[in-house]
């Protein structure tokens, strides 16, 4: 296999992103638009509150009995003629996909959008094994042409503006005339992709909702490429994380409505595919084989913790990113992870280890905007704090990967001193007296203070504390 990749470096990447003016402008413009459109789509606060409560309840109750629903899904899918395979790791999932493709001698694959396939780094894997894997979602197609990864889970090429896409097409697509006209650019991609759908030996897609009671795979999309990828080639392989199951068909409409309105502010998408199985006897179209690969990749570990289990409620709408003041300023690539933004700050450290990705956990002001817009009520800020606590834990066992691995000796000592002083009234008043008389809390040049003064004037303690003013004014003590 390939060499160990360079370790993720959020600090370096986010610093570079902050200095990239056009990138920041692209994100700011796009996120401002998305936030305004979403707000208009959920204009009725009561309807929003009720629908979100329903969505959260469906997801929470599904997760509470996840294994049961998955077993049922598998059985129903098999009855429908869909073969079901389980993968604990992304390596296993890749091997399963490769095995299916090899069995059919497939060399050309078209793909619908799938974040699970990004987890698997499936395109790279297939290319290494001599199989062409072409992204057919327009945004995914654009970034694949440029050798990039998605910067947003719904709008993977949102970091690029029209001019950048025009230049890319002119450079990479044969016979493409340079144009910045959006319809013309779309037509160029459409011309390339249309041919590929008919030539492909297999199609690969994600899954938005997998219905346990009927064995139906639901796919939400806008471009028709999802339908083409899953319908035209003779073999369809669907990829899903274990959390994507919903118990009943009636669970789908509320989640679908929450998803489209939260993601792109659409009341409904252009396409909603419900895949019930391969082509039946006497049917004239549809794939001859449908395979479902169900991936764990750390999800069972999230599921094992009662609070962190809420991470798996996510329906991948991206609203948390759109509303995140950090994401808006640095974009998705800076996170150096498959899932950027607030939900990624939960998923990535739990998948890769809270010790290895403590930098991501720190990159939140805990403003709460993500939790406020999450359509399934994931308490994202609270869970970020929980993972910070896991990362800094002094020891003890837990389901969280890398627990205690980011505990810093000097920092933990500093918090111990802080706690000692602030929990002892006399000590606190003595320290407060010193701070007000000296006019500072910490010596100049002390790292936290110098980080602060890079952008701001230094705060100076008042000459007399509120305690002293209260004494002067004879405000009664308890």
């Amino acid at each position, binding site marked *: 296999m390939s060499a160990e990749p360079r370790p993720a470096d959020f600090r370096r990447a986010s610093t570079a992103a902050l200095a990239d003016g056009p990138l920041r402008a692209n994100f700011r413009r796009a996120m401002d638009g998305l936030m305004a459109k979403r707000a208009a789509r959920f204009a009725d606060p009561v309807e929003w509150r009720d629908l979100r409560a329903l969505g959260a309840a469906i997801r929470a109750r599904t997760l509470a009995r996840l294994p049961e629903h998955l077993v049922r899904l598998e059985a129903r899918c098999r009855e429908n003629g869909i073969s079901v395979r389980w993968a604990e790791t992304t390596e296993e999932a890749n091997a399963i996909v490769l095995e299916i493709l090899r069995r059919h001698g497939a060399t050309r694959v078209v793909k619908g959008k799938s974040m699970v396939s990004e987890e698997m780094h499936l395109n790279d894997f297939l290319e290494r094994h001599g199989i062409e894997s072409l992204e057919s979602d327009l945004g995914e197609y654009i970034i694949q042409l440029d050798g990039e990864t998605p910067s947003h889970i719904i709008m993977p090429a949102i970091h690029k503006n029209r001019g950048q896409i025009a230049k890319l097409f002119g450079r990479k697509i044969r016979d493409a005339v340079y144009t910045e006209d959006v319809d013309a650019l779309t037509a160029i991609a459409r011309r390339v992709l249309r041919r590929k759908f008919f030539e492909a030996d297999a199609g690969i897609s994600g899954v938005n909702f997998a219905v346990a009671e009927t064995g139906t795979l639901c796919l939400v999309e806008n471009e028709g490429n999802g339908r083409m990828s899953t319908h035209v080639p003779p073999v369809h392989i669907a990829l899903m994380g274990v959390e994507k199951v919903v118990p009943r068909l009636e669970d789908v409409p509320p989640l679908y409505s929450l998803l489209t309105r939260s993601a792109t502010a659409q009341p409904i998408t252009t396409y909603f595919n419900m895949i019930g199985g391969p082509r039946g006897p006497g049917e004239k179209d549809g794939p001859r084989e449908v395979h479902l690969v169900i991936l764990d990749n750390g999800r069972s570990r999230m599921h094992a913790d009662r609070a962190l289990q809420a991470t798996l409620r996510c329906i991948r709408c991206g609203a948390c990113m759109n509303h995140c003041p950090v994401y808006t*300023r640095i974009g998705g690539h800076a996170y150096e992870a498959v899932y950027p933004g607030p939900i990624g700050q939960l998923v990535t450290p739990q998948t890769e280890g809270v010790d290895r990705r403590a930098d991501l956990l720190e990159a939140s*002001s805990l403003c709460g905007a993500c939790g406020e817009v999450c359509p399934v009520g994931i308490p994202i800020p609270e869970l970020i704090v929980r993972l910070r606590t896991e990362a800094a834990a002094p020891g003890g066992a837990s389901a969280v990967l890398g627990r205690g691995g980011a505990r810093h000796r000097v920092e933990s000592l500093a918090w*111990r001193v802080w706690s000692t002083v*602030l929990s002892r009234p006399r000590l606190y008043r003595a320290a407060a007296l010193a701070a007000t008389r000296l006019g500072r809390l910490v010596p100049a040049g002390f790292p936290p203070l110098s980080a602060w003064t890079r952008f701001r004037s230094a*705060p100076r303690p008042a000459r007399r504390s509120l305690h002293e003013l209260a004494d002067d004014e004879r405000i009664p003590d308890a």
Partner: protein
Amino acid sequence: MTDASSRPRAVFYFGTCLVDLFYPEAGLSGIRLLQREGVRVVFPRGQSCCGQPAYNSGYAGEAREVARAQLRRFPGEEPVVVPSGSCAGMIRRHYPDLFAGDPDETAARAFANRVVELTEFLVGVLGVRLADRGAPVRVAWHSSCHALRECGVDRQPLELLAQLSGVTVAPLARDKECCGFGGTFAVRHPGISGAMADDKAAAVEESGAGVLLSGDAGCLMNVGGRLAARGSRIVPRHVAEFLWERTRER
């Protein structure tokens, strides 16, 4: 509004560590605003911090000991008024979790239920009517994220400002976006935090306001500090101090 029977005769005041050390005049102004309504204000000495900095940094044990010390300073059942949405939110929303399974859990829950943010108390419980005595001024209002999202305090400060005839509240671009303070976030990721503070400072400047008001000391220190570094002459003020200074009888 409120009837006399529901008005508490006395309240406790939790000043918060930032107000105690950096904005004591704002703290005292909050006490004055309450006293003027005929409420007896008790300020327990030796109170310090709600514990939020350590809690948010992942040091729950250290945060709990500081929080426990506060529980001891606030006996009784009177409301605890806090001139900060962030600290009020910490106590109200997070003490129950922080003390889950701890011998002080019941006390922590009781304490959490007593906590009210200052403007929320002035408007919702006391129903104050203010008479403006100050010169005309244009102000920008910045709500802290925790006041907004953890305490549900959004309209109350604006209702108080609307009572002041000489005060115009300037519309602020992206008024509900975080200013980038986030406690230790500001020093752990200074670049990102600084970019957020800079955008907020620029929006305040563009609003044409002469004064920046907030109900949270952390935001004031952050945006005020950025405004100063940009060479701006806009004055950062805690809303309690601003309200008191404009309405006090001289």
